[in-house]
């Protein structure tokens, strides 16, 4: 059942690096991460790779396999032919630390900029009542394992480093949509979505949806509805007048009392 596969793995650090060739044994039922582990155990003990659960649940082992963003633990070797050379490189959008490990701190910084969930002040713990049908919309987005492959693949940052300061990527636009659709949340994040997270940069090419290992419909179910709600607000005459009294950045950050248009 076993065979010897040809692997090309990117090795190096922030000062540079390149592809290294390996010949390595493959057994039945294995995934790309197994082969990377075999390389560590037998040929390259210092080969750097992130991984945790090895079951597609933690989102640590994201990399690009033959140029496509993949979780290495969920990429079965049987999806390749035996004579195929398999190339594994780090995610391209984030700076390399070493080998397959990248600096994903961009994502954590963006996460910190999304105004948190804010329930009604007078609602006591234990008294929360929500219908299943109402929580399901946000539940879809909470399946996210934060592998950051959607942010890796999004051309708005993948090909435009300069957009990283103004654009948070699909992961955090989806997080805004998730909070927006939470039945008991009281904050309006539409302005934040535009000003701080750059929702306008998304031109709905759906690359994020394609790579999502959780099969979340990021574009259709999160970003497009978010864009629609923003459009509603922008062209609503009352909001247009209100926006003349524009709040400063701090004001936006601490505005849990802003009423929601629809909930």
């Amino acid at each position, binding site marked *: 059942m076993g065979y010897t596969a040809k692997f090309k793995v990117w090795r190096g650090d922030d000062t540079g690096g390149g592809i290294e060739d390996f010949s390595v044994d493959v*057994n039945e039922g294995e995934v790309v991460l197994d082969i990377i582990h075999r390389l560590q*155990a037998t040929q390259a003990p*210092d080969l750097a790779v992130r991984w945790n659960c090895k079951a597609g649940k*933690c989102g640590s082992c994201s990399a690009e396999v033959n140029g496509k963003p993949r979780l290495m633990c969920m990429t079965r070797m049987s999806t390749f032919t035996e004579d195929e050379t398999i190339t594994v490189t780090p995610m391209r959008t984030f700076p390399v630390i070493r080998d397959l490990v990248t600096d994903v701190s961009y994502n954590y910084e963006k996460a910190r900029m999304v105004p948190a969930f804010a329930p009604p002040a007078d609602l006591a*713990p234990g008294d929360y009542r929500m219908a299943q049908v109402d929580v399901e919309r946000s539940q879809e987005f*909470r399946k996210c394992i934060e592998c950051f492959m959607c942010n890796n693949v999004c051309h708005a940052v993948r090909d435009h480093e300069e957009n990283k300061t103004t654009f948070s990527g699909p992961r955090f636009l989806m997080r805004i949509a998730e909070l927006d659709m939470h039945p008991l949340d009281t904050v309006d994040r539409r302005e934040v979505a535009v000003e701080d997270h750059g929702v306008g940069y998304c031109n709905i090419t759906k690359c994020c949806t394609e790579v999502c290992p959780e099969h979340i419909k990021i574009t259709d179910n999160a970003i497009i509805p978010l864009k629609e709600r923003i459009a509603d607000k922008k062209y609503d005459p009352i909001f247009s007048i209100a926006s003349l009294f524009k709040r400063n950045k701090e004001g936006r950050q601490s505005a849990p009392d802003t009423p929601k248009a629809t909930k």
Partner: protein
Amino acid sequence: MSEIERHSFDVVVIGAGGAGLRAAIEARMQGKRVAIVCKSLFGKAHTVMAEGGIAAAMGNVNSHDNWQVHFRDTMRGGKFLNSWRMAELHAKEAPTRVWELETYGALFDRTPDGKISQRNFGGHEYPRLAHVGDRSGLELIRTLQQKIVSLQQEDYRETGDYEAKIKIFAEVTITRLLTVDGRAAGAFGYYRETGNFVTFEAPAVVLATGGIGKTFKVTSGSWEYTGDGHALAMRAGATTLNMEFIQFHPTGMVWPPSVKGILVTESVRGDGGVLTNSEGTRFMFNYIPDVFKDKYATTPEEADRWYTDPDNNRRPPELLPRDEVARAINSEVKAGRGTPHGGVYLDVSSRLPAEVIKKKLPSMWHQFKELADVDITKEAMEVGPTCHYVMGGVEVDPDTQQTLLPGLFAAGEVSGGLHGSNRLGGNSLSDLLVFGRRAGLGAAEYVEALPVRPAVDDAMLADAEAEALAPFSNVGDENPYTIHADLQNTMNDLVGIIRTESEMVDALARLQEFKVRVKNSSVKGGRAFNPGWHLALDLKNMLLVAEAVAKASLDRQESRGGHTRDDYPKMSDEWRKINIICRYDGEGAVIEHQPMQPMRPDLLELFDVEELKKYLTAEELPTHDAGSDH
């Protein structure tokens, strides 16, 4: 000695799973400055793997449920070796901890009247587990992670600095706890990314490092599960308790080999899945032990009725506590009635419509489809036991979670006591929340009451640095990966699910050889993100933990929960009264016995005397009437 980065905090939390994050939240709410140190990225801890849910007697689905019933179930599941005080606190506080998560933004599945839905699980008398499909652990960790972010946002509004009160040190491994005059003083470790060292000076340290799964070959645990907290605590002068009790989850994947051990959630059985052998027999009916005889159905017909009419039928035996099911599967396979890949069948396809399976068990459907090419809506899964959880752990005070070392606290899987000899499914996530919070509170109160903060001196750090760098200067040619594989095989084969004296004696001899081999293991490459070096350091922890497990297992001459002795197959009332304590003597693990505290009379009264007779010695039995009302 090189210049070492130093930080000063009130509380340092080591580990960023459910217990660590809940401890950090609590310490911060008490006004303390907190560092969270995690081996992985923030939000990747092993808690994400939890599938079934959080056990809490909210009574949303069956109003008969209450803390007393949950307490009884927990004690029964642990075969009365539990710390009854922890079991009491756990059962009483779990509902509040779950409701609190909703205020942080958690979105659990709902009942028709809009409350948190609760599902059935092994050993729980009523539907009790708050859940989100089969990704409950992900919901828990994300919710706590997002709560921490929201606290950082509050701190930002107040001070202009997100990290004024809570700072996260991701991908940092702690190699040593620092102590001064018999008290905790901080922790020393390295950044995985750079290999640079870092010192945390803090009067209170909370260990929340999780389990020890990576000492075993077939495990549901991730690479992080190297027993760091257990080993750090023992080396710093604290103790571990009852390390022989290891839960082998009955249903891990057995095929293909690369996923062997990965968990198949108990919810599959809770939602109707049945176990059959190669002859098609639903074999669990043959394995109902005497202590549970009156609680479980004896025919498939009654068992099936239970799913729709639980008040008038007894539970299916597939939902016996995990230790019972794991042993049953082991016996079936040994008797030659296993599947082609050495497991048994777990079938939900013939029990539920495909759409319901995908709705209730989406991760399982996905996992089998992607990793094993099996469609669980059409065919049965092959499953077998996998090392899942260590019930034993660092000995703590039940109320404050403080260890025997003042200033050192422990919560979650790394701590011991709550689960006794066997943990019920769902009681882990609730454990993290209840005792994570208590550890954070205990640490904050300890810091508050401390008159003088301990000072860390440079000599201590030079020694810690030398120890951490040793693998680079070792001259031998032992490969750390090979030693690790040998250790895992030894523990799996000789101190595994069924144990016997001669094998454990053999294991202990091998562990001594591994200690020598680790000293001869050398590391190639530099210090920046070097997994070979990381493993060489983790191995020392795994070896100490493995020794503690093997010695405690050899010592306990009875079978109970997660400790099954071929040579002592019966449960012993006398052994129930004994906690096996492990400490580090400078060379390795040494054990001693500690008498179990007798249970408080009001808690004892929650049980029928007839039931207590199954576990307690005659002189321990209370005098209250049998058949009292509950």
